[in-house]
């Protein structure tokens, strides 16, 4: 007997692996997946953003990441991912359909790749996750600011904060072994005792910024697409076989 996972569920869980690089949250949770249509020919996904003027480089990353995530789902058929209601919708949708890549899509506006952009935001996401862990450990009272540079991954209680930190460390290539230090710079170097306060403050500012942007974007999306439930994409499956 086989356990059948519906094709809808497979598509949605593939899309859930796509993150808004700037907000550090899955596009499915942000309400950016507007619709999923599955038929005998394949699957068509429509994405949407909080404004027409959201940054086109981030928009491109999400659309192409969604395409890549769906490409590894077996026997989906033809895959189409389209961005709705954006000032660069035609450019991005056309570029993706033609397999033009980033430089082919944006022409003279593109130089090399979006790897550095993605890396910058992965480092910011790591910074914020690190601060959340440190703040929670400090609030618990068992560790002091002076001791913080010695904190190891081993010392963090298991839970969502720790697993979020591990995921983000992995993304930027930092060690995830239990004796790796928690409070490190972007290259994994431990922070000196004298710099702990400054470092934590900067990480806190980063966290406030990311969280605030996420709230703002969610609010704008809800205002822009008033009357629809932003958390639930419209899924239609007319496939004649499963």
């Amino acid at each position, binding site marked *: 007997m086989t356990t059948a996972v519906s094709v809808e569920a497979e598509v949605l869980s593939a899309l859930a692996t796509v993150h808004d690089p700037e907000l550090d949250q899955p596009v499915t949770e942000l309400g950016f997946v507007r619709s999923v249509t599955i038929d005998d020919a394949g699957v068509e996904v429509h994405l949407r953003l909080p404004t027409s*003027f959201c940054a086109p480089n981030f928009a491109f990353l999400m659309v192409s990441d969604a395409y890549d995530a769906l490409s590894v789902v077996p026997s989906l058929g033809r895959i189409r991912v389209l961005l709705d209601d954006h000032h660069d919708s035609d450019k991005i949708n056309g570029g993706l359909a033609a397999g033009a890549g980033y430089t082919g899509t944006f022409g003279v506006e593109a130089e090399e790749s979006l790897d*550095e952009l993605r890396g910058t935001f992965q480092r910011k996401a790591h910074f914020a996750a690190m601060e959340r862990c440190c703040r929670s450990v400090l609030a618990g009272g068992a560790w002091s600011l002076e001791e913080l540079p010695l904190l190891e991954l081993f010392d963090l209680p298991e839970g969502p904060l720790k697993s979020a930190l591990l995921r983000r460390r992995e993304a930027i290539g930092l060690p995830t072994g239990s004796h790796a230090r928690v409070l490190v710079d972007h290259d994994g170097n431990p922070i000196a005792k004298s710099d702990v306060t400054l470092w934590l403050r900067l990480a806190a*500012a980063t966290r*406030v910024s990311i*969280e*605030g942007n996420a709230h703002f974007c969610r609010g704008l999306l809800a*205002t822009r697409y008033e009357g629809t439930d932003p958390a639930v994409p419209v899924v239609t499956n007319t496939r004649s076989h499963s």
Partner: protein
Amino acid sequence: MYEKDGEQYFIVDAHIALWDARAENQLNVHGKQFIDCFYDYHRNLSPESEVWPYEDYLYQGGDRLMKDLFDDGYVDHAIFQPARLGEFYRNGFGQTEEALALTSKYPEKLTYNHNWDPRFEQAGLDQLRRDAERMNLKGVKLYTAEWHGDSRGYKLDDPWTRRYLEECLTLGIKNIHVHKGPTIRPLDRDAFDVADVDKVATDYTELNFIVEHVGLPRLEDFCWIATQEPNVYGGLAVAMPFIHTRPKYFAQIIGELLYWIGEDRILFSSDYALWTPKWLIERFVDFEIPADLPEYPALTTEQKKKILGLNAAALYGLDVPRQLRLPAPAGAR
């Protein structure tokens, strides 16, 4: 002037506009997309009682502006910060002549800042000299994500931008208001990054760089450079209305700003007509850091007075009535 609990506040609204986004002024779909985006900001962040009908939002005109700011809104002085958006609107978004006429009618109440775009190169530089004289400019507003032909943005440290900044120095235009946007070339990197502000602030120490929206969505990058550059300021346009929808987030923004750049370099603005100043000023004067954010100290009345007007008055040399100034520190003459 706003008065509450025996305290009087001199109010400078450091970022206002007189825009025209009506259909007849829209050049293409982007003109509509742009004002719709603004209207969504307005609807999303305003208290229900302060939400305008869409029609009112497209264009206000001078009489409505004067009423909203000065009759109803407690504002003592306001500064135009116009965006041109020449690729989206026939006659531009900010209405230059209308705003200038209003400024010459009410010079005590209004200051007009204009804009320039380094991609007009020499012709734009010549225009800037003429504008500075005709408009008596003390400041400019730069929107780095302005579209221009096949370019959709520029950086402050581009060679031509530097020439314009040098011309501003010569012309006595000291206040450079910078608004970062989502598109600069190449798209490879983060357009909201304020690293270019850092470079020019270091190189042109006699200019003041007021980063609008306090660098949002990159508050942390802004705070980091602003601590190192004493001539970098934060404008609260768009950050202010979070005081209603997301007061905790607003407290975090203010808390971070006070920690990193201090109370002397933060400027209030309503970003009119995105929002109206009346409710923002009332809420800000009443605002306290919530108890669940012990990492931030309490906001003082003195800090509120500086942010609401005294800081901008100092930047623009505005005459603040004696009773509205802060008492001189002990020992000062």
